[in-house]
């Protein structure tokens, strides 16, 4: 039953326009204005210079250069900015994009080839952008017998969970989205979501290869979560806290990797398995099960899963840095912000721009972020390197390594930590 489109008549056209305008006005008055009122009633508006920042005031200030800087500064203190941009999703996604580019170039260099080269003039630096545009414009094909709602929602869930993981990683002093006292427990809880999402997506696709891949991913993730969690207990025993920021602060003089190298190695290997990276990329083994649980994803759904997995990679590398490599700790190398720019302004030829309220970031924060990024990059290099060096491992060997070797080693690590604690070397009342 197809409807034949009626012939165009001006009267119908005007009627349709008027109808649309009428319904828009009705909906706005009935739903929109109450919604705005409710929103303004429940949200705590920030107070700047003793004034409540109403929307009207905010728009007035935006046109005023002197006032817009504190406005931006206030905006940067909001939770929304933290979640969406700086220590949260945007920062992580930017680093993840960098990781994808570096991975492709480094792997190409290792394999004596060129890699992305032509897109963006300089060594293919815009390749990732063009890939993203390609994925956006591709058709999304969904298997006919798939469980559509779950299949649609799985990539979003994957990215969302990865972003939640990113939000727990402290980047610099007081620069973390969620500074909670049970930070490490929250990390474990979030990691526990990934196998569920993987199995849901693979099951809902209603296809053979995704199903086998999903079951493999489930096996792999669950069996490596145990050594992953156990290997971190050593750090928790020595610091006596689950708060990630406090764990970083406890490493001001020495890093935990110096005392717990076994735990660091176990955590690194378990991390590779959790990330499904080579040599543990069994869920995506293309010569056996096409692309594993990603087989039926197409277009931007695939892109979202990739974004999620690289966000996860960044988050795991960040967690490694936070727990074992001293987080943002490092010598102060960032140059101090010149005081006269704040007081006198910047003189550029005839124009003097006075911007009170600068700097937006403190020196400690920038320095901490710099060190954190440097250390994370080093860890990411070692996560990427095995991709060019190792073949894929087999599922029974993988489970054997997980259950027999890594769990044993992580217990050894716990005993080392306990020994150091009870010998009085380290810990809250230790001599060091």
């Amino acid at each position, binding site marked *: 039953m197809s409807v034949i489109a009626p012939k165009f008549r001006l009267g119908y056209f005007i009627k349709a326009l008027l109808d649309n305008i009428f319904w828009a006005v009705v909906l706005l008055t009935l739903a929109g204005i109450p919604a705005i009122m409710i929103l303004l009633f429940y949200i705590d508006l920030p107070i700047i210079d003793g004034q409540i920042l109403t929307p009207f005031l905010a728009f007035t200030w935006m046109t005023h250069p002197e006032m817009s800087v504190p406005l931006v500064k206030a905006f940067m203190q909001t939770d929304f900015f933290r979640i969406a941009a700086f220590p949260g999703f945007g920062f992580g996604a930017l680093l993840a994009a960098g990781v994808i580019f570096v991975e492709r170039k480094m792997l190409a260099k290792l394999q004596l080839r060129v890699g992305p080269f032509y897109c963006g003039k300089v060594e293919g630096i815009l390749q990732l952008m063009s890939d993203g545009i390609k994925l956006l414009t591709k058709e999304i094909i969904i298997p006919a017998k798939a469980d559509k709602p779950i299949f649609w929602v799985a990539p979003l869930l994957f990215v969302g969970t990865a972003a939640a993981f990113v939000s727990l990683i402290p980047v610099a002093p007081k620069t973390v989205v969620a500074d909670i006292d049970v930070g490490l427990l929250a990390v474990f809880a979030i990691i526990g979501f990934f196998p569920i999402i993987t199995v849901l997506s693979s099951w809902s696709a209603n296809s053979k290869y995704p199903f086998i891949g999903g079951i493999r991913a489930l096996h792999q993730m669950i069996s490596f979560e145990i050594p992953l969690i156990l290997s971190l207990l050593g750090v928790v025993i020595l610091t006596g806290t689950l708060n990630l920021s406090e764990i970083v602060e406890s490493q001001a003089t020495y890093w935990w990797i110096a005392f717990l190298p076994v735990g660091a190695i176990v955590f690194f290997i378990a991390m590779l398995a959790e990330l499904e990276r080579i040599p543990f990329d069994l869920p995506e083994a293309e010569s056996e099960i096409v692309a594993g649980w990603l087989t039926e994803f197409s277009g931007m759904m695939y892109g979202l899963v990739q974004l999620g997995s690289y966000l996860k990679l960044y988050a795991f590398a960040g967690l490694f840095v936070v727990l074992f490599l001293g987080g943002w700790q490092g010598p102060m190398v960032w140059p101090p912000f010149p005081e006269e720019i704040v007081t006198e302004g910047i003189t550029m030829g005839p124009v003097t721009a006075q911007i009170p309220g600068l700097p937006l970031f403190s020196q400690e924060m920038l320095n901490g972020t710099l060190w954190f990024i440097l250390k994370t990059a080093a860890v990411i290099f070692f996560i990427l390197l095995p991709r060019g060096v190792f073949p894929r491992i087999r599922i029974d*060997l993988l489970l054997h390594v997980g259950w027999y070797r890594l769990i044993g080693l992580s217990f050894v690590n716990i005993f080392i930590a306990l020994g150091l604690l009870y010998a009085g070397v380290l810990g809250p009342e230790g001599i060091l």
Partner: protein
Amino acid sequence: MTTQLPPGLQLEKVDERIMTLNVGPQHPGSGHMRLIVQVDGDYIVACDPDPGYVHRGEEKMCEYRNYITNIPHLERPVIHDSCNILYPYCLAVEEILGLEVPERAKYVRVIASELNRCVYTMYWLAIYGIFLGHSTMFMWPMGDRELLIDLLEKITGARVTHAYFVPGGVRNDLPANFEDVCLRQVNYFEKRIKEYADIFYDNPILISRTENTGILSRQDAIRLGTTGSVLRASGVDFDIRKKEPYDVYENLDFQTNVLQSGDSYARSKIPWLDMFESCRIIRDALRKMPKSGSVRVKLKPNPKGGDVEVYRRVESGRGALGMHVISKSKPEPYRVKISVGSFRNLICIPYLLRGEKLGNMPAVYWSLNYWPVEADR
């Protein structure tokens, strides 16, 4: 609603536990063929190879073309190893037509066929690497293969389909100062393939994946009629270059590599070890080659043979490659039967994969040194 099945057809009873996977022909883990794999969980219950997707009727085509025009289409089954697949044909036709090949042509043929064997082995190794998820092992052999393809291009004038061997010698002589370029690139090639040891053959993860998988015992290897690297990996010292030397192989200094274990690891290592021997043969042949002389005997336009049958076989990249040519006093051969190593090694697949894990399937399947297009002919 039930449909009436035509008489003689029955619906297959489906076991709930057993899942049938079609690995191929549109699967990244197969060539131009299909493996019908039945899995119980992660274990393979049965595996049925199903070749024939690229059957070209090469044998029938041979009966309608004369001895020279058969050359270009006969090398199509293995374009990476095109010199070696033409080699037995040329030997057989020379026997039929009673041609005496010049000494220099024999050496040139040996050099070209050894270069081509390495080119084929590198291609095979690249795919073996990507089957095991080792992307570097895909890129390195594909890149280093270029060194030898460059040499072959200098000799024959084409990168893969050379059409270089003809009954009575080779098409053209080596180019000027080829020896220096050849020695330089072959030496560098040998240095490069030595570097594969650290990253691939001595890699503990690779060893753990391929060792003790798909073991073919010495008796089974002989009983199933395997050949080439599969046979030598099972401990049988059989190399046609040594056992039935053709052309000038008896003058050259090389050895055959034999491993005893008969698993996927040994099967994948034999071709790699053979490449070192190929480099040795090339250097030796360049040294012992007569420095001048003809490389091709002149042939009549449409040569005819007598009423004879000739079977000649050579060692190709995938094992014994034989051609049975029957001549009935005509310009065209009466019958050409091609016996290829790939097809003879294919029979191992159901034996080797039964009871293995699905993860071992690519490792075992591609270690058989199998080339689907050649098997279909």
